């Protein structure tokens, strides 16, 4: 079975140690977390953790069950690309000079990114998009020399609260 990207979304109790328990499940089984995003919900006793991991489907099933077993985990769902909105934000720092200025500006317009800071020749570009868009943009700017990069990791929500369309 092939490894693929899996997006796991969890509601957890907002207490100390929860993140290390969640991470522990992956670490113990020798799997890496590619991205991780945690924040409080409107009910501050609950947080959502969205994490992305590369594994095969069987393994992901196992992981989901292990996560669900944790006392502080309230809910575990896997989100498919087809049935969920998946976004991440990225900040990309790059030096502009007379040679690449034009090209950078065109790319920013083309990808619909924003420049959120320019100090001297150094600019920071912000993008919010799905995984594919993010990677396309990264691939485009890469040859121009990305100076610094920060990504939030993916957050995602299911489009239908009651499950995937074709499962109903």
């Amino acid at each position, binding site marked *: 079975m092939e490894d693929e990207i899996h997006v796991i979304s969890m509601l957890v109790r907002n207490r100390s*140690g929860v993140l*290390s*328990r969640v991470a*522990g499940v992956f670490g113990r089984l020798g799997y890496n977390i590619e991205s991780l995003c945690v924040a409080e919900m409107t009910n501050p006793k609950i947080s959502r953790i969205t994490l992305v991991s590369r594994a095969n489907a069987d393994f992901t*099933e*196992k992981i989901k*069950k*292990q996560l669900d*077993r944790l*006392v502080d985990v309230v809910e575990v769902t896997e989100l498919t690309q087809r049935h969920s909105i998946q976004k991440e934000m990225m900040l990309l720092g790059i030096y502009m000079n007379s040679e690449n200025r034009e090209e950078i500006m065109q790319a920013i317009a083309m990808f619909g990114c924003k420049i959120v800071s320019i100090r001297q020749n150094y600019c920071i570009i912000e993008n919010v998009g799905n995984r594919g868009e993010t990677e396309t943009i990264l691939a485009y700017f890469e040859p121009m020399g990305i100076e610094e990069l920060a990504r939030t990791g993916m957050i995602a929500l299911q489009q239908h609260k009651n499950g995937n369309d074709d499962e109903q």
Partner: protein
Amino acid sequence: MEKTGADILLETLAKEGVEVIFGYPGTNSLPILDRISDSPIDHYLVRHEQAAAHAADGYARATGKVGVCLSTSGPGATNMVTGIATAYMDSTPLVALTAQVTTDLLGSDAFQETDIIGITMPITKHSFLVNRVEKLESTLEEALEIARSGRPGPVLVDLPIDVITERCQSTGKKKSALAQKKTANRKEITAKVREISRHLNEAERPIIMIGGGIKLADACIPVSELIEQGQLPFVTTMMGIGSVHSPNGFNLGFIGTHGSELANRAVHQADFILAVGTRFSDRSTSKIEQFAPLATIAQIDIDPTSIGKNIKSDIALVADISEAVNELIPLVKKKKRSQWLERIERERSNIEGKHLSNGFGQVAKFIRKVQEIMGEDAIAVADVGLNQIWTLHSWRSNTPRGLLTSGGMGTMGFSLPAAMGAKIGSPDREVVAFSGDGGFFMNIQELATVSYYNLPVKIIVFNNGHLGMIRQYQDLFYNARFNACELGDKVDIKAVARGFGIPAEKVSLDNSVAGIEKMRRAQGPYLLEVTVDPNNYVFPIIPPGGSNMEMIYGRQK
């Protein structure tokens, strides 16, 4: 009224039904021990913290109640780790209390500070660091509830000394509702139970597979009824031994690496297996690809992670076992499967007698004699190694909690401290701790505890001067190159026991009756050292990596 954390701790435990704590003090746990004589809870002072955890574990296994152990911070806490892991692997309800340095010193490498929460994270069901005295009561209630609910397991509560000495108004707050883990809803249960009953009724060669979950769920009676109702032959896992009673002779024994050939062969031929309360551990299935090749497998378990963990089941139901089985019973038809039962009987008569070679018969006879003399409802606590397999095969466990063993973890040194806990939990039953000389030495210091409290635990040590099972593996699978398996005969175990103040006798396998009877008559503890030839092995055995059908009865060519 203002109370100290120590008082709140002890009162909450007592209110939750805790009667006994097994522990060992250190300066950081003194504020708790200082208040214990004013509490209705009895504290048993063991001689090593590992034994405190095993004793609490044995207490829980014998009674079904939550076992509680208490240590100080640092080394006291780390010494309990093996005991906690043992409880975790066999899903024992246990609450381990560890003292901790004051909250302002946390993370400063203070004297006897250790991150016990971090250390035990993979071997506890859950853990808590209590950082405010106001949270103590609700945390303890939650800890006990988590330990005993669903699939039980150990919960660790780390108690900084300032939280224990601080005073606060008793909150008297209502219990916080614990988020219950999802099981199947009624509709799903009904649908799945129907599906299982359909398969079961249609099956020609059905087998029920009984795991340790039956005891834990108190489902021994419904499962026995199911077997009776359907006239169904059954096998157990190591942890499931003794859970089900059936006068109909349908118990085929336990499966797996050291299991009975009859059970392993029956599973291999079955066309339908209903597995209840088991995770299909590798010790039960051996080579997983060749496990039950002909069978449709249905599984009922309270723990979703136990389903499909090791084996893909065709029908899976996450539910309380009693609830599901009670619904299943009326749907199961009494069906005469004479062909299947005859086939099993044929197998049985072919296999019988194979044990008797290799000295197993002599040991089995001895263990049965012990049970006969000690009484049918005596509790046997097995250690790990040859003595364990001998005991599991020979002790006729007629009550669900009549045979205790460290099945998942395989912890040597378990039997003596666990037997102490079992005896304290069920003072009306005789408790016999079996061990080999190797395991006996691992917690030998507990003879002092047994002696101090005059606990009437009967201790049987099979002394073959070797780590017997290691010797067997080296003999059979490493071309008889014996390394690091000889313990020698320099230690006079009988004299050691007497030195601890415990009467003891040394007997041989073929001349043991007088010794056993003397042990029976002893009012307090008693130790029986039994000399055993190191060539007495356990058979059948499945070579490492083999399937359950590759049992061997002697040396391979």
